[in-house]
Every structure is written in C-alpha cells, then in structure tokens.
C-alpha cells in the first residue's frame, strides 16, 4: 500500500555542483546533497515534529523500566477497570491525586469508582516504587513519576491512564508494550533492508536474465495477500515456543513480503545511476565493482531507502498489532500494543471503560508520526525538484 506506483520515474537528478537555485529560491550552490535534504526537511514543520516525537517515544521505550511506574503484569484486583486519575498540584500537598474508591453496583454488578477526596495520594518525580531492573541488568527502584510510598508501606495506587480488567496499570503496559511493538518494527525493517538491498542491488546491477528472473519472482511473491499469509504463518507457530522465539519469528514473518517494494526501488535507482557518467568513468578507470557500488551508487540510494523504510515501519507495527490482536502473535505474559487491543474487542467494555483504548491512541500517534515523517522525507529527498 505504501508502494511507489509501478511506473514511478526516478526524480530528475541533475549533476551536483553549480550555482543554481531550487524552486524555492534556496541557494543550492555549494551544499552537498545530504545538506540540501536536511535543509528542505527542516522547513517541513510537521515532519520535524514527528521526528522529535518518534525519538522521544523510542527513548521512553528504551528506558521503559524507568518510566513505567508499575510492573506491567501486576494485578490489583481491588482496582479492576479503575479510571485514569488526574494529577494535581497545590502548594500544600505538592503533586498529588485524589484517591479512588471502588464500588459494585448492587443491581448490575458493574464496577465503578468515585473519588475519595479525603485520601491524598502523594506524587512526585523519582518516586520510590517497585523493584525493577533496567534492561534486566541494573537494579533500581525509583521511577520517573509516581506515587510516593512511605518507608514502611507501599503507596496507595496511582493509575495515570487507568487499569484494565485485571487491575493492571495501563500506563505501564503501554510503555512496556511500546518496547515490543516498536522494536519489532525496527528489527523487521533491518531484515527488510538487508533483503531488499541485496536482492534489488544484485538485480539492478547485473541486469540481463538475472534481473528478469528476480523481477518475475518478486512479482509472483508480491501477489501473495499479505495479511492472510501472516495469519497462516502465525497459526503454524508451535504453542510451546518461548516468548522470545515467537517475537523473532514474528519479525521474520513481517519482513517476508516487505522487502519487495524496497528491492524494486533499489533496483530502479541502481539501473539509472549505473548509467551516470561518474559511474561509467569509475568503471573505465578500473574501479572494482564493490567500490563502485559502495562508494558511488549507494549514496545516491540512501535518501530513497530512508523514505521507503520510514513508510514501511508503520505497516510492520500494524502487522504485529493485527497478529497479536487475533491471538496469532505475541501471547501473555508478553505485553505489546496488539495484545492490549484484545481487551478492546468488547464493545460494551469500550463504552463503559473507554480508557482501555490508550494503546490504540499510542498506535495511531506512532503510525501517524511515521507517515508524516516519511512524507516529509519523501518531499525533501528530491532537493532538485520544484516543489
């Protein structure tokens, strides 16, 4: 879906150098292509904002243990479907929140909550909380923001984004889940890049019957319906694989079809770049094929590669979401956004406890950012075009 159209022509590449101006009057004079791209990108406000957002999100995912106030699988059965609590600030209490009390509706047995204004839950930064290990190695117990406990007892609970059906903190789950969901995208992309670059490069560079054959194969494989293929592969994964194995299996599954669009673009670019004067002269001067590829052709590819993969990552994230949502991907106790979405399947639950949609919002924002970023990069990647 994020493919460039079939007969997308590579943008007009004029030789670099010269003292020209581009369509917006910027001095394209003596800047390198990379710098030009960056400059154009900088003008794309939304794209910039998306970039910062994504870096922030990935950072939080990286240091998830620190940012998440609770263990993602911690159940608090006294606070099932607890609503989000708004932190307040006052001069007397500092950061705090009102306590909440759970009730059961005597007629419908529905759980609901009311504020208990007498109970003050003290909050603060770097609050002491549950024991955790950063990346499984460094033990620590202070978290970014949370309920302050006394030295002898645990703090009353504070759920910024509410809890789910087992009383698990949604904020913590979203943060830990981001680790899985986001990293799966990255790792799949790595596999995709490797496959796409190699195969596309070989195809474009060697041309002839190799190129033809590979092209036909790519056409055939791309005819496979993506989601059903993923479903099928998800369904055949043995039940007793450990969480980690499943994780890696999924990354491979997701990249199985994605490399094709990258390979196509790479091939197209290499085909055209190969004929460029500088490449031909390098060949005539006796440069080895490797040198030509890495030193001369690859840089011309980079911008395209970046664009393609930036637009492909959301597809991977959505793919993992879909698989886990259907129960064919990751399984509890692993937490990912897709796994969290399983709880949203129940419409009545959605209606009564809308805060469980938090992972959906996270997904939308992440994917949106990637799309904006990719779009901005695509616009910027062609510094010599007129718009």
């Amino acid at each position, binding site marked *: 879906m994020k493919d460039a159209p079939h007969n997308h022509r590579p943008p007009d590449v004029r030789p670099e150098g010269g003292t020209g101006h581009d369509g917006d009057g910027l001095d394209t004079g003596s800047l390198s292509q990379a710098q030009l791209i960056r400059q154009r990108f900088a003008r794309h406000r939304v794209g910039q904002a998306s970039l910062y957002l994504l870096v922030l999100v990935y950072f939080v995912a990286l240091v998830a243990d620190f940012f998440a106030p609770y263990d993602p699988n911690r159940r608090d059965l006294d606070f099932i479907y607890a609503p989000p609590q708004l932190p307040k600030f006052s001069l007397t209490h500092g950061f705090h929140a009102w306590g909440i009390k759970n009730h059961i509706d005597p007629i419908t047995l529905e759980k609901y909550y009311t504020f208990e204004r007498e109970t003050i839950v003290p909050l603060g930064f770097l609050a002491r909380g549950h024991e955790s290990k950063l990346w499984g190695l460094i033990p620590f117990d202070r978290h970014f923001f949370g309920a302050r406990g006394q030295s002898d007892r645990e703090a009353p609970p504070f759920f910024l984004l509410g809890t789910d059906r087992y009383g698990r903190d949604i904020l913590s789950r979203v943060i830990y889940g981001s680790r899985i969901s986001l990293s799966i995208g990255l790792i799949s992309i790595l596999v995709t890049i490797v496959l796409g670059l190699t195969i596309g490069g070989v195809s474009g560079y060697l041309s002839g019957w190799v190129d033809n054959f590979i092209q036909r*194969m790519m*056409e*055939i494989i791309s005819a496979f*319906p993506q989601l059903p293929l993923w479903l099928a592969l998800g369904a055949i994964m043995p039940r*007793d694989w450990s969480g980690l194995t499943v994780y890696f299996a999924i990354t491979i599954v997701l990249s199985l079809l994605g490399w094709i669009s990258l390979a196509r673009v790479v091939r197209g670019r290499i085909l055209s770049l190969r004929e460029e004067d500088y490449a031909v002269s390098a060949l005539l001067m006796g440069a080895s094929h490797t040198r030509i590829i890495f030193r001369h052709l690859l840089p011309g590819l980079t911008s395209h590669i970046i664009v393609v993969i930036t637009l492909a990552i959301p597809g991977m994230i959505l793919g993992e979401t879909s698989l886990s949502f259907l129960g064919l991907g990751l399984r509890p106790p692993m937490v990912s956004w897709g796994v969290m979405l399983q709880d949203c*399947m129940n419409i009545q639950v959605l209606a009564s406890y809308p805060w469980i949609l938090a992972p959906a919002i996270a997904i939308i924002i992440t994917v*949106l950012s990637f799309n904006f970023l990719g779009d901005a990069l695509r616009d910027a990647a062609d510094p010599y075009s007129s718009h």
Partner: protein
Amino acid sequence: MKTGKLIILAKFAATAIGVLIATLVWVRMVGLDPNQETRTYPPEEVESVQRSRSILMGDDDQPVFYRNVDYSKISGSRWEPKREPPILAELVREGKLPPVRVRTGDEPAVLEGAEGIGRYGGTWNMATKTRMFIWEEMSRLFGAETLVRWSPLGYPIVPHVARSWVASGDSKTWTFQLRKGMRWSDGHPFTAHDIYYWWKHEFVYGLENGVRMEENTDKIIRHGDRFGRVRVIDKSTVEFQFDTPNPFFLEKLASTYMQSICFPRHYLEQYHPELGDQELIETTMKRRGFVNRSQLYMEMKNENNPLCPRLTPWINRTYKPNPPYSFVRNPYYWAVDIKGNQLPYIDQVTMEIQTKELIAIDTAAGGYPASFKWLDFSDYSIYMKGRSTYGYEVQHWYPAFRSIWTIWPNLNRRVDPGDEISRMKAELLNTKEFIQALSLAINRTAIIKAEFNGIGEPAQLSPGRESPYFSERLHTSFVDYDPDRAERMLDSIGLTNRDGAGYRTFGNGDRMLWFVTVSDGTNPGPLQFVIDDWKRVGIRALPKLQSSGLVLLEFITRKQDFYVGGDMSGFIPVIEPKSYVPVGGGTPFATAYGTWYEFKISEFATSDRVAYPPPPGHPLGRAQDLYDAAMQAPTKEAGRQQFQEIMDIAAENLWGITIATPPPQIAVIRNDFRNVPKKAIYGSVFRTPVNLASETFFFEDYQASPGNFDAIRDEIETVTPPPDSIGLVESSPDARFTPIGRLLKFLFAGIAVAAVVLIGAKHPYVGRRLLLFIPMLLVISVITFVIVQAPPGNVIETRLMNLDESTSPGNAKEIEQIREYFHLDDPFVIQYARWMGFYWFFTFSEADKGLIQGDLGFSLDDPRRPQPVNRIVGDRIVLTFLISLGTVLFTWALALPIGIYSAVRQYSFGDYTLTLLSFIGMSIPGFLLALILIYWGGVFFDVNLTGLFSPEYEAQPEWTWGKVGDLLTHIWIPLVVLGIGGTAGMIRVMRGNLLDELSKPYVTTARAKGVRPVKLLLKYPVRIAINPFVSTIGSLFPGLVSGGAIVAVVLGLPTVGPLLLSALLAEDIYLAGSMLVVLSLLGIAGTLFSDLLLMALDPRIRMEGGKR
C-alpha cells in the same frame, strides 16, 4: 554550534511537554467525573434483584406445565384439539392436511405455558457457536422424542411421548402407555412398534452384528452388566424388562445425552441392512457416495435429512449445506394447550452460526428472543444495563452444572513408546498428591473476584447444596489457598530438582512443561491466574487454545495433559456420573477407563490401547462397582446412599480441580417473548429448553413480512432432500460444483485462451502478463501447500488416530478408505499434484479434479462429516469480491476529486485538513476503526451494526425494501473501514502527480492563452496524472482482499477472511489452503485488471510494448 544543540534540546523538551499536555487532556476526558457519586437505588429494587440472583431454587415456585386430563372425556372438553395456526389452516382448506383433531390424535399432551395461552406466529432466531455440534444441539433443543421429560425445576418428571406409566414393585418392569392416534411428522401413525423397532432392529441387531445403528441409546437399555428387553403389549403399550431393579429408569429416559428411542420404522426400515429394500440401498449408496450400509443408515437418521419423519415440535424440511438452518412447525405435533390450540405457537426456528463475541453483542442488543447457551457471566453487567433500552429481562436460572471451569487431569494420558516424557507425565498425573498440590496452590478468591464478578464461593465440584446428593466433604476438599503445603507435597513426591528458570523438573532432570488445553468455547481468563499460581510453586504450564474440533480429537486420542471443561454430571449425578466415576468414553479425567466400562458388556472388540480398566485396587474400580450397585439398588434412596461413597472417594482423590461454585445461568429473554419460566434449572441433562416446554413459547406481537408466511408454508408443504452426493466418494459429476467452481474453471480456461489469442494479436506485453499467471499460480500454491502442511499432527492424522483406536470395528475399513482418498501414503509431491488437479489433464476423470478445475477439496472441520469446500465457501468468494470492488470504487470516487482539490488548492486550509484526516485514516488499524464505528452506531444511532444484516432480516428470505435498507445500514462500515486507508494513500498519490503536472510549462502556456481552468485541468494534467493513479489501484486490490480479512473477522462478515482464520485455527488444511490460494488469485486478478486498464488509458505503454 552550542546554540544549535540547545535549540534541538529545547525542541525535545517542547515535544515532551506537548505529549504530556495531550496525555493530561486525555485523562481529563475519559477519566473519572469528579462529581460521580455512589449510586443508590430504592431498597426494594435492590433486594428483589439480589433475591432473584441468589435464590435460584425455592420451595414456592415449582412451575409444572403438564396437565393431567381424563382422555376418555375428550369430546366437548375445553382442551379438545380444535384450533390451529393460520398456516396449517390454509393447508387444511386446500386439502393438503387432515383436520387438526386427526393430526394430534385422541390423547394429545395438554400443556399450559408459564403465563397462559399464547398466540400463533413468529420466527425464533437463534445462534450457536459450534459448527460441529450443531445437529446434536438442534436435537437437544427440540428433542421431544423422549417418553418422559423434566419440569422446569427438575422434578416432577412428567409424561411426554408416553401418556402414563406403571412400574412394578421391584422396579424391574416398566410399562408405558402411549398416546392413541399420535402420528409422525409425515402423518404415519406412531405406535409401540416404533420403539420395539429401535430395540430389536437397531440396538440388538447392532450388538449381534458388530455395527453401529444407533447412538448412545445403549445407556437407556443397559442396566448393570446386562441389557433390558422391550416388549410390545399392544399398539399403544410398551414394556421394558430388566433383570435387576432399575429405580432410576425414569430419570434416564428423561435425560438428554440419550438420543431418542422412538424411530420411524416405516421410513428407516427400507434402509435397514437386513430388512430393507436391497436395491434401494444399493442405489442410494452409489448416488450418495457411501461405502457401507450402516453409514448410510445413520445418515438417513441424521437430523440433517429432512426426509426422515420426526416427533419434534419443529422439523427440518429443507436440506442446506450451510447455515442458517430453518425448522418449521410440525403439522402433526401431538400437543395442545388447555384451550385446544395445537402447539407449538411459534412457526419457525432458525439457527445461525456465529462467534461467541458476536452472539454476546447481539444478545445485549436484544437481537434474540431468548438467548442463554453461550452467555458468560462476566458479561452480566452489560446485559443488566441493557434491559430497559433493548427491552428484555435477565433471568437467573439454576445451573445444573456445578462448575463452569474445571481443570481435568488426564489420568489415562497416552504414553508413546520411547517417549519418556509422556510416561513421566502419565505417572505424575496419576499421583494424587500431585493433583492435590496443584489444587492447593490456586488462589481461588482472586479468580472469583476477577473472573466471576465476585459471585460464587471457592469449592470443588459437587452436586450443589440444594441437591440430595450434596457432599460437604467433596465440596471443601483441598480448596484452601495453601501454596506452602503445596510445595511440601510436591517435594514429597520427588519433584525436588529445579531447572535454571526455577521451575521443577522431572525426577531425571528433564524439563517439565504442562499444557492446559482450552477450547474456544471456554473462557480462558482464569487460566492465566492458575498458571501464575502454579508458577509460584514451581510448576511450568502453558495454555493451549484450540478449536473445539481439535480439542475433541485430542481428547479422544488422550494426548492432553490437562483439559479445561465444565461439570459433566450436574445436579442429579446418578444419571450422568462422569464427573465422579468413569462410566463412558466421555469421562473427562479417565476416558480409557470409561470406555472400557462402556463396552465391557458388549461384543465390540476394543483395543487395549484405548480402553482398559482401572488397575486392581484402584479407587476408580471401586467407584465403578459402587455405581453398578447404586443403579440396581432396590430403591432410589438406597441408590443415593451407595452413590455417597463415590463422592467420598472423589473427595479423597480429587479427580478434577475446580475453582468455585457456578454463577447463575443468565437467560436474556426479550419482553415480547413469553411463557418462558422465570425460574428454571438449566442443564443439558435436563434438556433445557425442553424442560421449559419450549413449544409453549410465543411472541407477543410478531410482525412477520408477507413473504415470510408463504415461505414457511412452502417449507412445510414440500420437503427438499439432500442432493445426491455427500460422503467421501463422489460419483455424480457436477454435484459438487457450485457456480463458484464453474467460475473458477472458466477463469482458468479463459485466461489460457486469452493469452494465446493476445500473443498472436501482437500485444506481447499483455500476453506475457497473462502467461505469467500460470507460474504465479504454481508458486503460490506450492508455498501455500507447504505452509498449510507444516504443523505436525494435522486434523487428518489425528482423525485417523482416533478412528484407529476407537471401538467400532467397521472403522478399519473407513481408515483404509480415508487413507486412500486423501492419498496420505503418497509422497508430498504427489499429494500436491492431486490437490491441484494435475492428473485431470491426463485422465479427464471426475475423481482427479483439483484446484485448477475448480474443486476446492474437503473441509474436515467436523471430522465425521467431510464437507466439500465449494459448498461451504459458496457465496463468500462472490461477496469478498463484491466488497473489494465496492471499496475500490468508493476509494476512487473519493480520492479523485479530493486529490485534485488538494493539488489545486495546495497549502490551503482545506488541503491541510484533508491531508491530516487522510493520514489519520491511514494510521488507524482497520479493525479498530470498525469497532469505533460500531460503538458510535450503537451509542448514537441505537443500531447494532455487526454482520451484514440484523438478526431479524437474516431469517427473512425475500428482499423487501426493509431488507435492502438494512443491508445498506450495515455495509457502509466495511466499505468505509476498508476504504479509508486506501483513499488516504490515493489522495496523496493523486495530489503529488497532479502537482508534478501542473508545474509543467505546457500548463502555464495554456493558462496564458486563456484556456478555461476547469477544462484545462481535466483535459490534460488530470489525464496524465491518472496514469500512476490507475496503476496504484491495481495494488489496492490485493491489499483490500487481505486487509479485509481482519475487518471481516471483527465485523462478522460472511466473507473469505473469517473462514480462512477459523480454518487455520482448526488446522483444516484443505479449507485453509484453498482459501489462501483463492485470496491470492483475487489479488492477482485485480492487478492484472488494472494493468489492462492502464494499457487502455496510456498510449505510451501500448506503443512501447510495456517497457515500464
């Protein structure tokens, strides 16, 4: 560049703060309303609901619907049969049916519903989850062919097919009076000879000849180690004779796991292997494709055969391969109400197959008149909240099953030679301390709180406090939460070694991993708690969620470690004691012991691997003996005391691990659906809803569509029998091939021909593309075949294993036949070739047709009845194609103008908004969007938007404007959901291309020369910009087809996607494989079509011979 870095840092901070603010806004929006107060209700209301919820069986409400009347005084009595439903009245007027008095006979059952006299008319629509058990479920729903039946709260047992009975003093002889003038659904008289026929020619014949002619009726006639005898005293009197006292005979007759003992002799006789018309049997066998006579006979009896006469209130008149199924009123039903109206009141019952989630959603929205079977107590609040909005009541029924969630260890776990792990597992499973420890490790209170809404007390499985069989000792055995004691017990049986992760290992150090099997009809919620609890005491376990078909197969082949099920026995365990003592193959914890017990007195040879007795001295052996004694005790009370000891043994040994007492059974009954008792006992042993007198249910004010009346009338009048081929061996030519099959056939042939023609006609590009189709198909099918065959132990293999070991001797032949038919012994490549249908090109024989010829193979979802995939798929392919096509058109129609607008008004406010919206559209996962839309539909428009039709219109055959309108209200959701992502992308493409064009010199020239803008726009730039636009559409189709799969699953659409998913989960390999190939083909077809379109539009491609 320090300032540069500072600026970047500042930007990060700004972003972070932005995210924070957004989060706080979200929290404020969806968080708790600060003014939320504790809810208060008038105390009487609260009290009444709580009473209704907690007191399910009182002394004051014992509804009994059966009325004892004096049949000698029928003429002139109030209950004399005189009135009938309009549909039947019409048929009588036309001379097609005899008058009502003749039809019901002179001694009809006289019933009075819970609320009195009802009204005629209406269609009761129902849904069930399992495809597999649907026919058994239907027979349970209506199973009116028992001699006696239960009342709503259990006792008293009332007459049903039999008018009255007398037992001899020693309970050895039971004599039943049947009803004079009672008829089968085809008008033929019903007499004692029909019952005798069952006994003599089905049961005894089967015993003597080693064939299976009936199902499970041996439980009625078997008594102790002998079988009873049936004697015909006269046309309406039948006698059962037993060698030992049989005090519980009535209970057995009334309970449901027994199939009927009343069979239409006049119909079935002709198919009887010995008595029947041999020529007819031969011909039918050939035409229908059966290989042995008993198989044919059983199919003739099967509920899916509309030609077989029945005694039930609603009957199946129309054979259909796929749901929804329809059952119309039986014109010869032998019951009336107290005013002489012939029953049932309701004209028609329809049955649809749905996922459990959708059944819950439809129930909550009042989509079913009466829904109870698939409702989870965890959805209780939802139903309670919807009562006034959707117009229904929530009844609380007493659950006869005393547990909805029990972990059954498999004492007879299969041990494969050479598989040390299986041996060690079997050993542990048979060590009582192991099971007891596992039970003690579970924190039941937490599970009750989290999963059962706090209703219920921790308990082991026992018949319930209200039951005369209650055992306090069993109820509280090993129910405490005592993980320390559990750990000590586990240590004491030798599981002291731990592995690297802290879990206990087997004695010899091997990794120990237990699987707990959960079928897709069971709530997997508590399992996670159990697994965590077991982890704390060092036991590693994983859940294994499987489709019901697979679960059954693995159960029969004893491959499971633990299996989560419910209570088998219920309120009166003497009838069905399998939760406590193994007396049949269905015993959840010891199927082999049970199978041995079941067959020890028959002459069926059972394989030692699959049926063996408990070892000497084993408590279950003692339990079996006690059971024998209890069933043959001189009085019921004496029997009950014997049974107590069985409960004590169960308390000692713990055959199952249960969490809690069950919550009330919820029944959601719509306000317009009347005569449903408010208090009832719900259980399959009691045959709910038969024990509720479902034939007295009626609709307050049913608005039927005019076509409905005629449709039902026609159905009653004419029987539509099954077509000629069911069964494994297809002999008749086009029988399997629905229009879809033909379509596929022509598709391939057409492409081949077209390719040749076009190549010759100098369009090498297109010709090449078409020819590429073939290798594409090959590669795709190979990959699919490999994927689908990959999981070990697929359905066919397991089915074979099951057959191989099951008791019926006729199976050896069936196994042979299956092996041969599916070519299981052939190498992989040959199997693939056969599936594809390559052999057809050589032999041109029907049997060798495969995928290429349009034959999609067989579905083994119900392993006992393979269904041709073509029939199951049926309309789905067309529907998938239509929805995809519709979405493409929708996308195009939307994206084109919006893209043009965006390009022309670049950077305007409209452009930015549209860009933002389209990006958001691209970013939301399709199924989520679907959910949100359904939610809005439900909340703001008060409409339930799942599926393609509302439940009422689903049943309606003809296309009224109402039905069309209903379709339109439902179909926009899939179109929008599927279309949005594509539309967004297309808008961007269109915009980009058009912008490219608009900046070209010729456009400036044209404007300068004064060409009008719109004309200019449309004539040149758009036409050129459309070029890549069209080609992108080509890639849209496969995306739609595949992405549509998930959305369809969520929305419950009858397309290919959900079928593929369920086939994958059920490991139904042919169905899954065929669906994958079909989806790929649809995708390719779309791409091909777009390429052709592109060629037509862009002369450059035509000229250059497609060098693009």
